[in-house]
């Protein structure tokens, strides 16, 4: 499947989760694309953890403001209804339970809802940035990622990389389907009709629970 198509499927599906009036933080990379697919019929406020709510679209070329960037240091805009604040307030919003959703990528995620997305010992140590606070504090945590990465399986029985947080993930959205983390394990609640259950299971190293009412992923 084409890479951009894969990203679009994931971003489009994540955007369907949001409801009118909710506050959402979108992580860097693929999760950022989710903003493009939020329905115009609902009012969703985006937070940028470097210090504002009401994040808008990317600015036109030539209209970038060096003092207005997203958490990835890229130029962005703010809506008229938005507000700026300092980093302590920003993380009070995040940690204090005021954020409805955080959407992040993952290196690994497991059936206990554990997430690893901040380092690979000896190889890559970018740091956790705001991820640990986001995953700990948001009401719902959605992992938006490609189902595998360069052939590596990322949905596991147990993460092997250093954790970002323990037992905090609620939902995983990949190009293959939508999975919910439950006490019993990972439930495949929606499946992309382009794949069979067996194909999804083959690249998932945790036993998938297939409910009777499994839906087709839109």
């Amino acid at each position: 499947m084409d890479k951009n198509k894969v990203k679009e499927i994931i971003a489009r599906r994540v955007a369907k989760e949001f409801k009118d009036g909710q506050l959402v933080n979108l992580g860097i990379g693929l999760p950022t694309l989710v903003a493009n697919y939020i329905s115009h019929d609902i009012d969703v406020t985006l937070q940028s953890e470097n210090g504002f709510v009401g994040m808008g679209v990317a600015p036109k070329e030539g209209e970038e403001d060096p003092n207005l960037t997203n958490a990835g240091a890229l130029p962005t805009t703010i809506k008229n209804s938005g507000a700026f604040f300092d980093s302590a307030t920003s993380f009070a919003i995040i940690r204090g339970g005021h954020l409805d959703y955080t959407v992040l990528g993952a290196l690994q995620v497991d059936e206990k809802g554990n997430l690893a997305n901040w380092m690979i010992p000896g190889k890559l140590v970018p740091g956790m940035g705001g991820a640990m606070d986001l995953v700990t504090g948001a009401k719902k945590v959605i992992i938006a990622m490609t189902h595998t990465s360069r052939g590596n399986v990322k949905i596991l029985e147990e993460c092997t990389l250093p954790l970002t947080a323990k037992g905090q993930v609620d939902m995983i959205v990949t190009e293959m389907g939508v999975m919910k983390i439950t006490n019993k394990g990972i439930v495949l609640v929606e499946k992309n009709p382009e794949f069979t259950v067996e194909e999804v299971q083959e690249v998932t190293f945790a036993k998938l629970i297939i409910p009777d009412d499994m839906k087709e992923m839109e």
Partner: protein
Amino acid sequence: MKKLISLEEAAKLVKDDMTIMVGGFLGVGSPERILKELIKNNVKNLTLIANDTSFPGQDYGDLVVHKMVKKVIVSHIGTNRETGNQMHSKELEVVLVPQGTLAEQIRAYGAGLGAVITPTGLGTVVEEGKEILEVDGKRYIVEKPLRADIALIRASKADKNGNLIYDKSARNFNPIMAMAADIVIVEADEIVEVGELDPNFVMTPHIFVNYIVGDDK
């Protein structure tokens, strides 16, 4: 007023072995002119407390590039390859802290609190070696306050008394760092007379500010 100093004077206040806080988020909202001047002085063995180590070739990212720093306390180093290199060669000690914890540790010192207790980092390497406190049945990590000898911050507007206003997302760590250091030096894009800023909209009260760098661009 006495608070106005030159870039050179500001940079000279930073000395070997000091702990400094530098405002900014991946460089946005950092006091670039003071940092440029500071790099000329080639100060050594600094401990840098900042959100990140920015990018090589700019602002506080270059403090690492020029090997002026022996230790960084930050939430993210992924945008500055030099930080990673020096960490692997053991020239630089890197303490990674969740961003919200870092903000609150800085705020706590400025607010006179003895510690921050936070759920962030539970069940991860962040809790290793730290005290865990149970309050009303919930577990928290005890994180100690962070202070600095000097905070270098950036404001959009300062009056000559040191009242500050920040611009957009350039605010980030600046207001809390202004409360957590022995000496606070502000680089302002614009300096105005006392009375020109509406006290209703002042974001950092002047009492936290020791020096303002004049607008000798």
